[in-house]
């Protein structure tokens, strides 16, 4: 069969491609997690793994059981709807063991996250150019973070 003799190299190339394709499917069988595609285009087992993560946030109700005075101050001011851990960070460990001191946030850094001037923010949110407004002083020098209106008093 002369035709096969002269096309032998093409069969070798085709064979190489076949081996490559086969290897791809073998490797794929090993690498793709079994639960992939169970619910969607992701690893199904990821849901239970994420659910098994330890809880890091305590929730504002937990905070308010001990810090009733702060809760009262906060609920009287503009920050009433801001959750404790939005500023203080996750505090489940502190709630479990109050001896763990979570530390206080640096107001010079924290407040500008929301209150730095930006044309894109709703007009109702007080916005300042921090450098000009505070001249390097931390915000709590004048504003009490839990109830920030000046009328409510400065740092406490």
């Amino acid at each position, binding site marked *: 069969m002369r035709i096969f*003799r*002269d096309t032998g*190299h093409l069969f*070798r190339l085709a064979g190489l491609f076949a081996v*490559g394709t086969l290897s*791809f499917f073998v490797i794929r069988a090993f690498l793709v997690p079994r639960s*992939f595609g169970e619910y969607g285009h992701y690893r199904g087992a990821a849901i239970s793994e994420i659910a098994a993560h330890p809880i890091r946030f305590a929730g504002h109700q937990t905070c308010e059981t001990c810090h009733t005075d702060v809760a009262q101050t906060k609920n009287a001011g503009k920050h009433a709807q801001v959750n404790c851990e939005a500023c203080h960070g996750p505090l489940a460990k502190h709630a479990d063991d109050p001896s763990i001191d979570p530390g206080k946030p640096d107001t010079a850094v924290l407040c500008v996250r929301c209150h730095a001037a930006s*044309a894109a923010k709703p007009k109702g949110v007080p916005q300042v150019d921090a450098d000009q407004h505070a001249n390097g002083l931390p915000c709590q020098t004048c504003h009490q973070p839990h109830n920030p209106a000046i009328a409510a008093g400065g740092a406490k």
Partner: protein
Amino acid sequence: MPGVEGFMYPNEVSLYWSVLIVLYPFITGLVAGAFILASLARIFRVEAVKPTYRLALLTALAFLIVAPLPLQLHLGHPERSYEMYMTPHRTSAMAMFGFVYLWYLMAVLVVEIWLDFRADIVALSQSTIGWRRWMYLAMTLGSANVSPRALAIDERVGWLVTLIGVPSAFLLHGYVGFIFGSIKANPWWSSPLMPVVFIFSAMVSGIALVMLLYMAATRLRRQPIDMLCVDTIARCLFYIFIIDFSLEMLDLIHRVYEADESFRSLDFMVHTRLYFSQIVLQIYIGTLTPILLLALTQVIRLGATARKRIYAVAGSLALVGIFAMRWNVVIGGQLFSKSFLGYTTYKMALVTREGLLVSIGLTLLPLLILAVLVKILPPWPEAEHASIPEAVAAP
């Protein structure tokens, strides 16, 4: 806020797609364009461009190897990129790139290059020694059959591969245009003409690049430049450039006439922030000047030296123009706010992962790879070891 003018939404202030995403369509376009020039010789039987056929194929391969690198650098985590093959996301155009790329690399370019260079590989496996011999022996796949009949079969199969390769090249670059053209939230990009414009601009850049590389390489090798070859390439470049420019103007006229709600904002941007890169660099320097220079060679009888100089200048300007076009599409599309009331600024970093130095490196890397490929598989006409019998016609 520095660099921001008017009203920008917070997520529009800094650009997500950097200069690397400008490089990606530029490099991919060079691949598609170089391959289409190669197909002129094989499919369309333009015998005059034959001296650049093999060089065009190797150029396409060198640039194709580098094409995914800007994406890898931009996205980070290259170790995860294989995931798009393992768990393909069929409804994501971006995720499908892996398959478009793999098809073009493995099923088209590598096969065509192997078939075309097979006789040379066999000859080199017999004439070299040491590790080079082993390398060529591996490349022969253990078959040293270079009988006239085997080569004739290679020619036929190669013709078929090129035939599949032309729509594949269109697919590769049309796909890149599609990525932008299909983003309906962005009026600067969203246009069904985008894939077509990308394909024609790819042809312009790829043909200009191979023409320049051929002229430079021939000069370096102290060989005479085949003027019939470069004249034919320049003529093709001229015609395709006119089609490309017409399509871009058609898009522009359509936008001006339609004048939808985004028009005033985009018009302002073109006359301010994009004025230099779009009007000056892309249109005047990168499109009209090379078209006029190439037109000059078509209407005035010029000497070979003058023609060569004009081709070199026109080719280089064409590359600048097409790069500017990619820049204006990618960067321009992120400079204005969706509110149409504000504009931001792109400031390119210098030494970061997505900075200028990396971009320059990525632009030069394909040329380095090409130099290695040319060393391994010399594409020059006099290096062709076994000429394919003239009597064998493609089907």
